[in-house]
């Protein structure tokens, strides 16, 4: 994967600070391909967001990540495990090919 150890740590810490310590993060998209260059950072977050607060938690996570690793184009998809979220093609793809970040 094309993320440094510091970037991975910054992402996981920021996501857990925003969504809670149980939140899990996967990297998917072009950044899992070592033969490519650049590209967006595509993340799938699995977390039980507070009702009506998911967008704010996501904005908070993005702000924290960018403060730590600099401004990057980050796409953060959140699933709460519900059938609606899990049915989205993007969630299914991320779950199929994503690399977990610890």
């Amino acid at each position: 994967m094309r993320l440094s150890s510091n970037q991975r740590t910054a992402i996981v810490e920021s996501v857990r600070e925003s969504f809670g310590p149980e939140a899990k993060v996967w990297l998917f998209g072009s950044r899992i391909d070592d033969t490519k260059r650049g590209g967006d950072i595509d993340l799938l977050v699995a977390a039980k967001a507070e009702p009506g607060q998911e967008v704010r938690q996501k904005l908070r996570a993005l702000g924290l990540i960018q403060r730590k690793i600099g401004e990057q184009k980050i796409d953060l998809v959140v699933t709460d495990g519900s059938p609606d979220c899990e049915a989205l093609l993007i969630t299914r793809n991320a779950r199929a090919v994503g690399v977990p970040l610890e």
Partner: protein
Amino acid sequence: MNETLKATLQSAISENDSHLGRMRWSRTALSGQFPLDVDKLAGLSDEERAILDQFLYRFTKIQDSMGTRLLPALYHLLEGDDNPRPFLDTLNRLEQLGVVTSQESWQKFRDLRNTIAHDYPETVAKTIETINTLFDDANEFYQLYTTARESALERLS
């Protein structure tokens, strides 16, 4: 003052004032429908949908214009420096100078804009939550723009 810079600032303010006026009008016009939920969204008339589109469109236009024109031109003007630099550094300095209310606030609206223009389709519930968040925080966004606008006008007068 550099005439090109002056023209850029004047043009950015004029453009954004127009967007802000339409954004505020559309928010007021739809205020009875907020907070939106799935049923309310489905029940909007074609005209109300068009107003909602306008609210979102005008917001993204101001956000883009501030990031690409207004704030870089203000930084250039205040610091006498037009060398390429990370945008977060520019924001930091503009916050110190009182041009940007807060870097966190800027970043939040930047990410909100990106979420609205998202590459990936989201569930309807998430789209509604995003729109409600912008509706609730609109005054904070007006303040962000107005503060930068006042700074620019002070330098232009």
